[in-house]
């Protein structure tokens, strides 16, 4: 069951739609612990993804994805925009040259994306950032793909693990980024970046 350019583009559009639906909620979360711009950022990312998904993918899906990252950074250069751009670039790099992808590529790409985010943002697990929702969720899909479950089941695990990761750090204090300045008052607040990853995971999970 090969994954085509069209599938990738559909996934981009689903993430865009997910960001649009949940933009106000992300803004609210970011107002509580940050500067309240996350909904704006995700709506810009949504615009970039939508119009990028309309461009011809060519025969190198890796290159297509990496260039998509640059397009995202250009319009959405706040923390989240830049992190997700770095993630897209890294995900693209590991599938460089491929015209179609295997389900196992998805796990590799998500793993690479995670590493890309980590390298760019230099945060550690437990700092209460998007990484804390992303990490268990990427682990879950890697396992699911190894045990050759259906993509639907794998997708469900991706989402469940993301939510669990998000909830696990909610009681903690933010340790990096703008929210870290708010100190103890962030304890108990959902991290906006974690929530953004839950939205991405849920949108991606529609795949297949």
């Amino acid at each position, binding site marked *: 069951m090969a994954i085509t350019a069209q599938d990738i583009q559909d996934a981009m559009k689903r993430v865009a739609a997910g960001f649009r639906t949940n933009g106000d909620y992300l803004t609210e979360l970011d107002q509580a612990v940050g500067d309240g711009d996350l909904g704006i950022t995700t709506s810009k990312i949504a615009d970039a993804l939508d119009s990028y998904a309309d461009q011809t993918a060519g025969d190198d899906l890796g290159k297509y994805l990496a260039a998509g990252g640059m397009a995202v950074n250009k319009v959405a*250069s706040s923390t989240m925009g830049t992190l997700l751009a770095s993630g897209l670039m890294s995900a693209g790099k590991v599938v460089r040259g491929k015209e179609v992808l295997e389900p196992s590529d998805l796990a590799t790409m998500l793993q690479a994306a995670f590493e890309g985010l980590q390298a760019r943002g230099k945060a550690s697990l437990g700092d209460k950032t998007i990484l804390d929702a992303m990490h268990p969720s990427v682990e879950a899909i890697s396992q699911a793909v190894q045990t050759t479950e259906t993509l639907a089941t794998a997708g469900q695990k991706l989402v469940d693990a993301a939510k669990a990761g998000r909830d696990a750090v909610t009681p903690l204090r933010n340790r990096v980024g703008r929210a870290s300045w708010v100190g103890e008052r962030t304890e108990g607040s959902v991290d906006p970046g974690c929530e953004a990853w839950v939205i991405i995971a849920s949108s991606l999970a529609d795949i297949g």
Partner: protein
Amino acid sequence: MKKLLNKPEDFVPEMLEGLFLAHPDQLSYEEEIYSVVRTDAPVQGKVGLATGGGSGHLPVFLGYVGKGMLDGCAVGDVFNSPSADQMLNVTKRINGGKGVVYIYGNYGGDVMNFDMSAEMADLEDIPVRTVLVKDDVASAPADEADRRRGVVGMVFAFKIAGAKADAGGSLDEVADVTEKALANTRSMGVALSPCIVPRVGKPGFTLGDGEMEIGMGIHGEPGIKREPLQTADEVSTRMLTAILDDLNVAAGERVAVMINGLGATPPEELYVLYRNVHKHLADKDISVHRAYVGEYATSMEMAGASLTIFKLDDELTELLDAPAHTPFFTQV
């Protein structure tokens, strides 16, 4: 709190257009209006100085582009980092052959984008040094000073870097003296009312009638503590104490003082704050070499103020005293 706007999404580009129309002999741009440079860029044989960051803080950032201060600035949307791409445009345009120093506030998005830009500049053989501004003592304790955010203290960094670059300093000399200036600079602020991001259209937080937020940054992000509003003397004494707990200034030393208004607070109130700070410093036998009282880094219409203390030695004094002339900062 109401705004004079057209479409919220046009706010930043229209603001920029207004700036270019108002200051045609000082400001120009590279590729697109979000990459602002001096009209005389690149200044050959001078280290180029770039900054960047979100909009909504005028005069920070681009208001300090001009003679004696910066060469260029990447401009983001309100409270949002500009992109690596814009920063690279600025970097290429202002490089006068001696490399470029990036001086900007310690915010995640900005750091990541400036880092990306520096990596790309390196590929084009433009040496870049980065000096991060982390002057806000309220944003993290002293043992985690690297997490602190950069606020209005960056204006002193721009001034010192600009003077050193004008004096013919090398890339490292300029970056080093700017780091020294920042090691001597601490700020702290208090907010009395929130501000409104045009695209969001409502305040990012609310403050009760008799409340103030201690240690609030310049982006409307919550501060460290919310308390009943105190008098001008109490607030300024408190900011000064927090700063002097962190920055060792001995009797007999001299400093520059900045009282910065966040937006809505009138200059009259800033001078009332300054009065108390000056008296406390005099009591400690610390002399004020220069006082800067006004709006130097704002959060649109936020009410509130911050205090910055910049400890001077002979080298820094001379650089601080050098003339400068930008759209928002003229010193003779």
